[in-house]
């Protein structure tokens, strides 16, 4: 199992108190995804950006629904790698 997060690079120079907004999910729980596939769009400091799958796998659980915010390092979903 892997927690899907917004990469640390995306948080560079950003105030620790700032949170990102989960704007839109492009996949649903149970979907099979490929490494590099865009899973969600998030907005951080007026910047819309993609979160991509780190590996091939299945989206086991979505932890942050669209419209909610999340902090640096917090997983937004759990990915179960394919064997």
């Amino acid at each position, binding site marked *: 199992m892997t927690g899907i997060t917004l990469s640390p*690079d*995306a948080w*560079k*120079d*950003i*105030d620790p*108190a700032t949170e990102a*907004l989960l*704007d*839109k999910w492009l996949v649903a729980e149970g979907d099979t995804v490929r490494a*590099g596939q*865009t899973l969600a*769009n998030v*907005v*951080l*400091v*007026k*910047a*819309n*950006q*993609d979160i*991509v799958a780190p590996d091939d796998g299945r989206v086991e659980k979505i932890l942050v629904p669209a*419209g909610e915010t999340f902090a640096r390092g917090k997983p937004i979903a759990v990915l179960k790698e394919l064997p």
Partner: protein
Amino acid sequence: MLGCSQRALRDDIERRLHGRAELTLRESGGGAVLTGPWLVSVSVVLPPEHPWVCNGLIDSYRHLGQLHVEVLKAFGVAARALPPQELPRTHEAGAVSTVGWACFGGLSPWELVNAEGRKLVGLAQRRCRSGVLLVAGTLVGPVDWALLCDAMGHPQHEPLLRHGTVSAQEMASCPIGPERFAAVLTQWLERELLTSRA
């Protein structure tokens, strides 16, 4: 024009607009703006490795913000791009009021303000693996804030937006036409981007 995360508001806004303006949704983040001859917008698409955008999203705003400072200076308008450490903290006592749903209702890194802290250039971006879209909007003339606030369902915010913003026209000693401003901005962009790519 709504920011990408405001799409859920579309139906309500369409109903309130009654055809007074066309409603569109942009790809970048940030809040709503009222477009027209009072707002000169520019969109710049750069590869991820370009010097303007390769040092993170905050730094990506810096170059476009500072370029706008220079362009406005050429029109006799003194503005400055706010570095992140100078941004007012909304949770601190005495902080400026913000209108979160409006692009010009708050301040983000490297956006432009006048000496009194009134905003005149807003910035946003869209980042993906293939490139970065930087967007800037400059208030060159007075905005019908009442129309925007009414459309968004917050007519009480009109004084906050009117007092929290300023147009280049108000600050300049001579008239600034949107076409002329756009032409000069384009010239500066072409020159700067060719230089930074070298």
